[in-house]
């Protein structure tokens, strides 16, 4: 398959990734059946994570690696977890994307990587205080389109 990211875009992303702080591990769950975009998503993430040494990629199967998918609470393919990594330790910060992050959503992926790398949500003190006292988990599902 030809490269999804051309040389010009790769160079731009390389510049943006100069702002990375700590390592980021992208965990991708794919499926062999009923997943039109799994192959493209895998290739896209391989190309993105190859741009900077602080980025890593692990690929699993949603069904054969079901325990791990449950651990990361991933139930779709392609399902992408953008996690923090220190050495071998991977910390799930609750940042996920389901589907292929293409078009406008490609910048969403790049920004998510930068945010996780900085280990800072950028939220206000008021929001942080509220989240700290939560007793039940919150799941936000943000529906988007690539166009």
């Amino acid at each position, binding site marked *: 398959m030809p490269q999804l990211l051309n040389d010009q875009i790769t160079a731009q992303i390389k510049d943006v990734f100069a702002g990375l702080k700590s390592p980021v591990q992208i965990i991708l769950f794919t499926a062999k059946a009923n997943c039109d975009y799994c192959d493209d998503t895998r290739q896209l993430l391989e190309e993105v994570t190859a741009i900077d040494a602080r980025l890593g990629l692990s690929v699993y199967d949603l069904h054969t690696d079901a325990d791990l998918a449950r651990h990361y609470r991933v139930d779709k393919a392609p399902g992408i977890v953008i996690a923090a990594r220190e050495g071998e330790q991977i910390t799930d910060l609750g940042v996920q994307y389901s589907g292929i992050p293409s078009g406008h959503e490609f910048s969403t992926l790049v920004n998510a990587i930068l945010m996780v790398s900085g280990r800072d949500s950028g939220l206000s003190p008021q929001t942080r205080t509220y989240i700290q006292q939560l007793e039940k*988990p*919150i799941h936000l599902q943000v529906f988007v389109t690539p166009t």
Partner: protein
Amino acid sequence: MVRGEGIEAMEFPELSERYNVSGVPQTTINDGHGTVVGAVPEQALLSEIMRAVKK
């Protein structure tokens, strides 16, 4: 405690239909206990989350 999931709406039409997604971005909180349409300021999202978790 908080999980944020971006979802490509066209790729998961059943889920988009379940939550009546007609415009994007649309944010569904805890399986439909709350909904925010559009890209709103942080404070507005927080208010809707607070309302949703009280249900």
